[in-house]
């Protein structure tokens, strides 16, 4: 990857420089504009990382596309709402929601997905069925209303730097993802479990051959993915709300991330979410009319140049 990645970095650098020059002479936006857009872009990317990293890991280990991943995100938001309504604590809602949905993911993998064996297509189709069932279940439990997860007052202020304001909840979001990302990295790169996971990603057949219980690894990773997505749902609840239909609205975003970053790689998920977050924000700022295009067109471009994404393996 290194050679290709370096070339990519160089190309990006040139493009960024070009964009900067263009901006100075053509768009005439102030430096403030760029600072604040980059800040918003990174914080949005942080949210996307939570949503998409699980999708990417699940794909790496199980070779399936989890189309119920948006449902996990939505479920996370709903469970958090229940926690907040009963205990009033937003901080408590994050781990409780993430754990609950994580366990749900474990169960779903073990009881249902495992039953159809190692047939990726059937598993993918099955996840669609579950997405539909989750839709109805959330509707029955939480109703059809559109909720917001109000952030607590201690996060509802904005430190000021010069003329710019940086909303605290976004700073918190970036911080949370730095922590979660570091833990994930330690887990995957440094722990024994991580080594086993990496071996499974590299070659599941071989991993089974040397006595790794890939079935159990699949279960763990699926649960972990659900856990992360649900955490994203709680955080996202303050930005995009929690409402029926959100599941299939965030799913394409998650796909954009993993397609750009490459499936099955944590680094890819991080790079993908930052790229998508920045591109979406800056794109909306510069060309609001083209906002979806600025998001999906580069994705197609990357597909054309490197179908497996920046960090994906062939």
């Amino acid at each position, binding site marked *: 990857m290194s050679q290709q990645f370096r070339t990519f970095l160089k190309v990006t650098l040139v493009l960024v420089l070009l964009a900067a020059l263009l901006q100075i002479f053509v768009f005439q936006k102030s430096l403030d504009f760029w600072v604040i857009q980059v800040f918003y872009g990174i914080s949005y990317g942080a949210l996307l990382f939570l949503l998409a990293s699980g999708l990417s890991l699940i*794909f790496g280990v199980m*070779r*399936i*596309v989890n*189309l119920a991943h948006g449902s996990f995100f939505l479920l996370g938001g709903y469970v958090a709402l229940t926690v907040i309504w009963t205990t009033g604590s937003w901080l408590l809602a994050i781990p409780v929601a993430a754990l609950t949905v994580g366990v749900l993911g474990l169960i779903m993998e073990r009881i*249902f997905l495992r*039953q*159809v064996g190692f047939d*990726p*297509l*059937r598993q*993918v*189709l*099955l996840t*669609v*069925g*579950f*997405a*539909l*069932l989750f*839709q*109805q279940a959330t*509707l*029955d439990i939480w109703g059809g209303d559109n909720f917001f997860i109000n952030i607590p007052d201690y996060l509802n202020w904005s430190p000021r730097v010069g003329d710019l304001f940086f909303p605290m909840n976004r700073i918190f979001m970036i911080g949370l993802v730095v922590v979660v990302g570091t833990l994930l990295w330690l887990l995957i790169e440094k722990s024994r479990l991580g080594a086993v996971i990496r071996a499974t990603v590299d070659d599941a057949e071989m991993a089974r051959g040397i006595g790794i219980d890939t079935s159990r690894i699949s279960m763990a990773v699926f649960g972990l993915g659900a856990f992360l997505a649900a955490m994203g749902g709680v955080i996202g609840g303050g930005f995009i709300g929690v409402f029926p239909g959100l599941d*299939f609205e965030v*799913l*394409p975003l998650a*796909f*954009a991330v*993993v*397609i750009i970053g490459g*499936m099955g790689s944590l680094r890819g998920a991080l790079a993908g979410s930052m790229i998508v977050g920045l591109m979406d924000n800056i794109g909306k700022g510069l060309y609001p*009319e*083209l*906002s*979806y*295009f600025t*998001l*999906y*067109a580069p*994705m*197609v471009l990357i*597909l*054309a140049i490197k*179908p*497996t994404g920046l960090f994906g393996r062939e």
Partner: protein
Amino acid sequence: MINLLRNKVIIVPAVLLLLALISPFVPSFILLLIIQVLIFGILALSVDLLLGYTGLPSLGQAAYLGMGAYLAAILVDRFEFGLSCDFPLVLVLGILIGAATAAFFGLFAIRATGVYFLIITLALGMVVWGVANRWNSMTGGDNGINVLSRPACGVDLSNDVVFFYVVFVVYSAALGGMYVLVNSPFGKSLMGIRESETRMQMLGYNTWFHKYLAFIIAGGYGGLSGVLWTHLNGIVTPEDVILTTSVDALLMVVLGGPGTLVGGAIGAMVVVGIREYLSTWVEWWQYVLGGVYVLTIYFLPEGLMGLPKLIKKRRPARKSEPPAEASSVET
């Protein structure tokens, strides 16, 4: 097995004929749903060609429906074209724009196989959705485009019964065309690719080109369904192009049975029946939809069309027919 094959060939026209006979007499709402089933049936044919015959699971087929639908709406809205006897031309243009889009997207998608193919087609579908959503001056953005009346050429398609017959004829032709296609040498080589691409390559086939052609044809079918879709509803919005439509199309084929052609229409009947009809009676219809779907994947890998065979397996030797062999049914 020849018996079953012959039966199938007779049964399909028989059912279609019956449908054509009874449809004018069904309640008007049901008629509308039947038309919807047929239109989705065409879209399902396009998914089936890819999934059932070539082994490529597409999750972006709504993109081609969208291209056809927007084309028809824009032609009417801007150029007042396609509301009189020029309507058949719009059908052809719909096929062409679907095929052209697929020809472009295929350059990206065909390299991938299996689940990768699924992701890439999904991404390409999102591009079309994004354009539909944001290219306001052309697509009307979230407002969509309204088409006030259906075409009239001698007969007025605004009459649902007339429109039904038009859709019926188009579906039958599409089905017949696809039947000929999959039974042609080209169709056989697609199935060969589905079974083992490497073997086909070693036999000297240009498998990339075969798949690319199949992808384009499927796109054409999608575009065709889109034109009819616009005139059924009188409106096209970005919602029609969204991921869920693609998911629905895939679902219909899986439900009905991949690689069976008419299975798609049967799947469409189930999905439309639950989504549009059952939902008017009960509120928990999504459990039924999800449930039917999950159960089909568990117990009917060959979809509803595999049901007769399954029943037969359970009750062996009651008739003189020899038990079915999997390989012979597929041809």
